[in-house]
C-alpha cells in the first residue's frame, strides 16, 4: 500500500482501526522531508512532532474525534504557531519565535492535526516563483531545475513531493493557486472573509487570504472546513455560516451524482488570447470537454476591466505592504543593525539589511503610491478600478455560475529565468489577481501535464461566498479524471510502512 496515495478520510479510518498509528505517519513524513532536503520546501522542521503523535496514539483516536486527529500537515512560514520560529523567509525575522498561536494554528491544534514544520516561501509572500526567499529557492519536484511557483512554493511542494499530507499557504494575488498549479496539486483561495488572518504575517491586508493545498478534492474540503469561519479576532471575517464542505460533498453530491443540477460555466476567451502556451490551452479544452460531457453548459464571458487588474493589484499590494511592514523596525524584535548612532540609522540600516531586494522594491513603490500628491493618482484611482473589476464579476455571474480558466499562461519556468526582470515576473499573476481584487473564491485543480511533463493547473472562479459550486464542480471533475489527482512526484524509493 502506498501511503502517499491515501486521502485524509482513508487515513482517518485506518487510524481508528489501528492499521496505522499517528506516530508511524508522522515519522514517515519526517523521514521523507529529510530525504528531500534539496527541494528546500521547509524552513523549520519540527522533530518534536513525533512526540505529539505518540501522545495522540496513547490517548487513542475515537470515532467521533475530529477527522484530522493524528494527521500531519505543514504551514507556510508566515503563519504563527506559539513557540515555533516564524521567519516569513526574511532575514529580518530570521530568529523570531512566535509568542502566540494564529487562529489557523489554534484551530488545527484543536482538531488534533500534527504540525510537521514551516514551509519555505517568497520573503513576506512577495513573489511568484519562490526565488525570493532568504533561505534560497524552492525546487519543483517534477523537475528540480524549475521553480516551485510562489509565494507558497514550500507548501505546494510539501504536498506534491509527499512531504506532508496537506498544507496551507496564503493567496494575495495567486500565491496558493500558482505554486499548486506548478506542482499538480489542488488548492483554494477562499472568498475574502472566509478565513481568519489573525496571526498571519500581513502582506496586503485587503487581499490576503489563507488557502488549503491538497492532492485531492476531499482532502482540500476537509482542510478548508477545519480553519474557515468567523473569528472575533479578525473583524474582516464573515459571520456567515460556514459550510461543512466535506460532509456536503459525500452526502449531498454523492447521492445525487446523476441528477445533480447542471450549471453554466463561463470562459473569458478574450483574456486568454496570446500569452497562453499551446499545452495550457489544450488542457483548458480538455477540462471543458469533461464538464460538457457531464452536461455543463458553457458561455463566453467578458471581463473588460481585467486588463487593468495587474496594475491595480501592484498599486494596492505595495501600498498596503509598505505600511504593514513598518513594524519590522529593529526596535522590539527581529534583526537590528549593530552600526547605528542615531535613530534614523537604526531604522534605515536594520530595514535595509533585513529586507531582501523584492521586499525593498515594493516598500519603496508602496510608499510612493501612498504619498501626499500621488495618492489620488495611484492608490485612490486603483481602489476605484478595483470596484469596477468587482462589478465585472457580478455582471458575469448573472450569466454563469463559475468561470473556468488556467491558473497561469505557462507551466513552471526555469529557476533564474525571470529573476532579472521584475515586470515579467509580475506577469505570472495575470490570471490569478482578479479573484483577489474581486474578493471571490477560486479553486485550482490539476489538469494534466505539458509536453515536458510539468503539471498544468486550471481554476474555477465562483461567486462571493459560493465555494460550494466550486467544490462540487471540482469533485465531479475528479470523478471523471482521477488520473489528474493524487499524483506525488517521488524519486526516492520508500520502504513500505505497511503492506
Amino acid at each position, binding site marked *: 500500500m502506498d501511503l502517499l496515495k491515501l486521502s485524509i478520510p482513508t487515513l482517518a479510518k485506518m487510524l481508528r482501526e489501528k492499521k496505522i498509528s499517528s506516530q508511524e505517519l508522522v515519522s514517515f513524513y519526517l523521514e521523507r522531508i529529510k530525504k528531500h532536503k534539496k527541494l528546500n520546501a521547509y524552513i523549520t522542521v519540527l522533530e518534536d512532532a513525533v512526540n505529539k503523535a505518540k501522545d495522540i496514539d496513547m490517548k487513542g483516536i475515537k470515532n467521533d474525534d475530529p477527522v484530522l486527529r493524528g494527521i500531519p500537515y505543514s504551514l507556510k512560514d508566515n503563519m504563527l504557531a506559539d513557540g515555533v520560529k516564524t521567519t516569513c523567509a526574511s532575514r529580518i525575522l530570521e530568529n523570531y519565535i512566535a509568542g502566540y498561536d494564529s487562529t489557523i494554528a489554534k484551530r488545527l491544534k484543536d482538531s488534533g492535526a500534527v504540525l510537521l514544520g514551516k514551509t519555505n516561501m517568497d520573503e513576506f509572500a512577495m513573489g511568484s516563483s519562490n526565488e525570493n526567499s532568504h533561505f534560497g529557492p524552492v525546487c519543483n519536484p517534477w523537475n528540480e531545475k524549475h521553480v516551485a511557483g510562489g509565494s507558497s512554493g514550500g507548501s505546494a511542494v510539501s504536498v506534491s513531493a509527499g512531504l506532508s499530507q496537506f498544507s496551507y499557504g496564503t493567496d494575495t494575488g495567486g500565491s496558493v493557486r500558482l505554486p499548486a498549479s506548478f506542482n499538480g496539486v489542488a488548492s483554494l483561495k477562499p472568498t475574502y472573509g472566509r478565513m481568519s488572518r489573525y*496571526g498571519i504575517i500581513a502582506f496586503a491586508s485587503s487581499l490576503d487570504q489563507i488557502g488549503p493545498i491538497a492532492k485531492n478534492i476531499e482532502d482540500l474540503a476537509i482542510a478548508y472546513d477545519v480553519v474557515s469561519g468567523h473569528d472575533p479576532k479578525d473583524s474582516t471575517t464573515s459571520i456567515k455560516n460556514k459550510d461543512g464542505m466535506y460532509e456536503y460533498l459525500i452526502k449531498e453530491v454523492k447521492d445525487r451524482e446523476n441528477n445533480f443540477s447542471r450549471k453554466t460555466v463561463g470562459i473569458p476567451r478574450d483574456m486568454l488570447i496570446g500569452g497562453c502556451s499551446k499545452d495550457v490551452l489544450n488542457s483548458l479544452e480538455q477540462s471543458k470537454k469533461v464538464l460538457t460531457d457531464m452536461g455543463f453548459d458553457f458561455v463566453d464571458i467578458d471581463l473588460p476591466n481585467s486588463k487593468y487588474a495587474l496594475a491595480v493589484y501592484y498599486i494596492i499590494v505595495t501600498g498596503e505592504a*509598505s505600511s504593514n511592514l*513598518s513594524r519590522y523596525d529593529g526596535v*522590539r524584535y527581529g534583526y537590528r543593525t549593530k552600526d547605528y548612532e542615531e535613530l534614523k540609522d537604526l531604522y534605515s540600516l536594520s530595514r535595509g539589511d533585513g529586507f531582501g531586494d523584492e521586499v525593498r522594491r515594493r516598500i519603496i513603490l508602496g510608499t510612493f503610491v501612498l504619498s501626499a500628491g500621488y495618492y489620488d493618482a495611484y492608490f485612490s484611482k486603483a481602489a476605484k478600478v478595483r470596484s469596477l473589476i468587482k462589478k465585472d464579476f457580478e455582471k458575469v455571474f448573472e450569466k454563469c455560475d463559475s468561470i473556468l480558466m488556467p491558473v497561469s499562461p505557462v507551466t513552471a519556468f526555469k529557476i533564474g529565468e525571470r529573476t532579472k526582470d521584475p515586470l515579467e515576473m509580475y506577469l505570472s499573476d495575470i490570471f490569478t489577481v482578479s479573484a483577489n481584487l474581486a474578493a471571490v473564491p477560486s479553486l485550482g485543480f490539476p489538469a494534466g501535464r505539458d509536453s515536458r511533463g510539468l503539471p498544468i493547473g486550471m481554476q474555477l472562479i465562483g461567486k462571493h461566498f459560493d465555494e460550494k459550486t466550486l467544490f462540487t464542480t471540482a469533485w465531479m471533475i475528479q470523478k471523471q479524471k482521477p488520473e489528474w489527482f493524487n499524483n506525488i512526484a517521488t524519486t526516492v524509493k520508500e520502504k513500505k510502512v505497511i503492506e
Partner: protein
Amino acid sequence: MNSKTENKKGYNAVIGLEIHAQLSTKSKMFCSCSTSFGKKQNTNICPVCSGQPGALPSINSRAVEYAVRAALAFNCKINNKNIFARKNYFYPDLPKGYQISQYEEPLAINGWVEIGFKDGSKKKIGITRLHMEEDAGKNTHNVNESLVDLNRSGIPLIEIVSEPDMRTPEEAVAYFKKLKTVLEYLEVCDCNMEEGNLRCDINVSIRKNEHEKFGTKVEIKNLNSFRFVEKALYYEIERQTKMLENNEKIIQETRLFDSSSGITRSMRKKEEAHDYRYFPEPDLLPLILNESFIQKEKDSMPELPDKKCERFMEKYLLSFYDADVLTSDKDISKYYEDLVSYIKEPKVCSNWMQAEVMRTLNEQRIGIKDFKLDHKKLGDLIRSVISGDINQNTAKEVFNEMITGGASAGEIIDKKGLKQISDLTAIEKIIDEVISESMAQVQQYRDGKTAVMGFLVGLVMKKSKGKANPAVVNELLKKKLT
C-alpha cells in the same frame, strides 16, 4: 467679548486647539489589555498593542460609545459611516509603524461649545471634527539608552479639533477648561492632566486687524496644563509680534513649549513635516453607527454644564457668574446641591462655596472629593450662623479649625464658648453699662451724629468678647438711644 483682543502693538491672535482626551474605558481601543495607569513597564501589553507580526485590531465598542457621547455633548453631527485610517510614521513608541486613527470620514463633525466670561457674555467656539484613535507608547531617554514602555500604546483617544475661533489666550484656556468640564460630566475621560489623560496642541497665528486673512500659523505641541497653554500662547504671540515688527517672516513650523523657561522652541519646519500617507485601515471594516445606537446614547446623556448652569440660575436665583463657577466642576455642583437641600439658603451656600470652600481646595490643591468636610458638616456650621449662634467672622474661625482638626462645628463652638449672646437681658445689661460710661458719644448721637452708632456697637461687642449678636445689639441700642 471678555477683553480687548489686540495686544499693545495692535496685533490680533487667531488660535485653534487640538485636544487629545484618553477615554476612561477599562480596556484598550483595539485589544483587551488593561488601561490602568502606573503599572510596571510593558505589563499591560499583548500581541496587538505591541505590534507583533500577524496581530489584528478589533474595535472596543465601549470606546465608540464614549466617543459618540462626547460628540453629542459637543453638538456634533455624527457620521453614520466611520472609516478608520492608518497614519504612517516611524517612532520607537509607535509599535506598528502606524497609528490607527480616522482621516477622511471621522466620527463627528461641525460641533460647538459655548464659553462664558465674568461679565456674563458668552462666545461659541466651533468644533471642526472629533475622531477616534489610539494612543502611542512612551519613550524614556537615559544617558546611554532609550527605553520604550508600551502600556499606554493602544489606549483609546478622541481628538477634538476646534475652528480657529479663539482670539486671546484667556479664550483658549476657557475653551480647554470647558471641554474638560464636559468630558468630566460625561464620565468618559478621567481628565487627569498630570497623567496625560488630557493634552493639547495649539495652532496660533497673528494678524494686524480682524479683516485681514489669517497669518502663517505655528503649531505648539503637547501641552498638559491650562497654565502652560496660557503661558505658551502669551510667549508665542509676543514672539510673532516681535518678528513682524522687525519685518521678519513667520515660518510654518512645529514648536515645543519648555515649561521651565516658559519659551517655545522650534521642533521641525514645514519641509521636515511628516507625510503620514493616510489610507483606509484594511484590517477594520467601516464602522456603521445606526440611528438607534445614536439615539440610545442621546437618551443616556447626563445633565451637561450649560443646562445645569441655567437651572442653577433659575432654581437657586444665582447670577450667571455664580452658577457658572459652581457648575464648572461636576463634583462641586453636586456638593453644592447636597448642601442646599440640607440647609436651604442657596445664596448663602453659594457664597460659602465660592469663598471658604474653593479657597481651601485651591490652597490644598485637592478636588472636592478629597475635601475634609462633607456637605452635612459644612451645613451645620452655616446653620449656626443663620440661627444666630455665631456670627460670620466667628464662623470663619470655626471653619479653619474644622478643616485642620476633626471636631464638628457644634463641638468647637461649645468648647471655645463662642456661642453668641442673643439673650436680651444679658445684652441690655452690657448696653446700659456702655451708655453710662460713654455719655459724651450718646449725646452726640442724640444731637444727630448717627455715625457714632458704630463706635457704640463696637464697645458693646468688645465688652461681650465678641459674643453678642451684632444684630440684636444694633436693634436694642437704637431703641435705648431714642
